[in-house]
């Protein structure tokens, strides 16, 4: 009980729990699940944009996109590192991603059909991620909060490069503007789903709020994202594909239409447009990299033996 009191006192003082502190098992399990899921999302998130690396229209865009995809790999690594402080092993987490035992964000199960998709991902998907992630910089678990601070610093580049690319399309040909609008049509609703199920249906929310892992409800964050995105859409001259989207002066916020939660459930269960492809690709990269890991291990062993013999 004394340990529980100490844990509660740290939370009440808004201080951070650190790796070797005592913590309730459920707090630990919740964090492992959330951080792993977050790490997996960063790793799988490299694929939709990675698909355009060889097709970027200029060297400048290619260099930018490469840097962004590398950042997402880095985000995954920061987060696996944070998860490991909770006593799990990184390769076990990867196994759980590959077998489907642990999930990643549904957003990455949608295809990138056109070049405009890459810009729209930067604008909407990284934009939604930022809204989700900024409060996590104050998460009660120290290593997770510190990883999020690093990540948030880098995300701002992601969103800005995306928006800049979309401005070029806006100022381009009719065909480019149509491509931009089409990408917005396809990514808008999946982006809203990134905030998770509505508050009434969110299984883990209340405990996470009490533990200060989460600071705001899913619906609050979703509303924040809609309100900040609407004026940005005006700048781009695109229409957000929602007939119910309008300003509500009473609430001082935008009203918006009903999200298709059945589609969300389908994609979570594995039945999205790209679920199979994403996991196959990830598993293949892991399996095909096996010989590299073995060679590096063998080399390290040889070097160590040489030093030992000298």
């Amino acid at each position, binding site marked *: 009980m004394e340990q529980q009191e100490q844990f509660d006192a740290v939370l009440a003082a808004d201080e951070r729990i650190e790796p070797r502190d005592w913590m309730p098992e459920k707090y630990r399990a919740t964090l492992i699940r959330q951080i792993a899921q977050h790490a997996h999302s960063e790793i799988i998130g490299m694929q939709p944009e990675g698909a355009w690396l060889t097709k970027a229209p200029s060297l400048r865009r290619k260099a930018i996109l490469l840097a962004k995809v590398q950042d997402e790999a880095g985000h995954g690594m*920061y987060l696996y590192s944070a998860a490991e402080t909770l006593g799990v092993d990184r390769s076990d987490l990867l196994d759980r991603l590959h077998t489907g035992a642990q999930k990643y964000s549904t957003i990455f199960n949608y295809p990138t059909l056109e070049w405009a998709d890459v810009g729209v991902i930067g604008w909407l998907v990284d934009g939604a991620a930022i809204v989700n992630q900024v409060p996590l910089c104050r998460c009660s678990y120290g290593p997770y909060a510190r990883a999020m601070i690093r990540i948030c610093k880098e995300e701002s580049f992601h969103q800005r490069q995306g928006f800049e690319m979309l401005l070029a399309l806006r100022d381009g040909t009719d065909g480019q503007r149509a491509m931009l609008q089409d990408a917005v049509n396809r990514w808008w609703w999946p982006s809203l789903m990134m905030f998770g199920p509505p508050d009434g249906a969110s299984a883990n929310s209340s405990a996470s709020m009490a533990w200060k892992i989460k600071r705001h409800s899913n619906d609050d964050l979703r509303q924040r994202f809609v309100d900040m995105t609407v004026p940005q859409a005006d700048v781009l001259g695109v229409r957000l594909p929602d007939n119910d989207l309008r300003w509500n002066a009473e609430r001082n916020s935008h009203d918006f239409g009903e999200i298709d939660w059945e589609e969300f459930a389908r994609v979570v269960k594995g039945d999205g447009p790209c679920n199979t492809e994403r996991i196959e690709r990830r598993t293949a990269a892991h399996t095909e990299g096996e010989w590299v890991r073995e060679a590096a291990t063998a080399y390290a062993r040889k070097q160590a033996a040489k030093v030992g013999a000298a």
Partner: protein
Amino acid sequence: MSEWPLWEVFVRPRRGLGHAHVGSLHAPDAEMALRNARDLYTRRQEGVSIWVVPAGSITASSPEEKDSFFDPAGDKVYRHPTFYTLPPEVDHL
């Protein structure tokens, strides 16, 4: 189990500052750990020097004994300058 050991990474942000812990990574040996740490933690020139330390080599104080372990410093208020009352003319000391 991960086949590669875990390394803790420390980065000196710029000359004049100490190395600070930034995270960890897995690598087969110290040299690869350094290279990976450069790619992972200094993609935007966040450092001018990196240390990598095998995670198992770190000896840490235990949070459970936090009170008793740091106790000896608790009752020595006279180690702080604010303990001493001086007249206003010399109170900048």
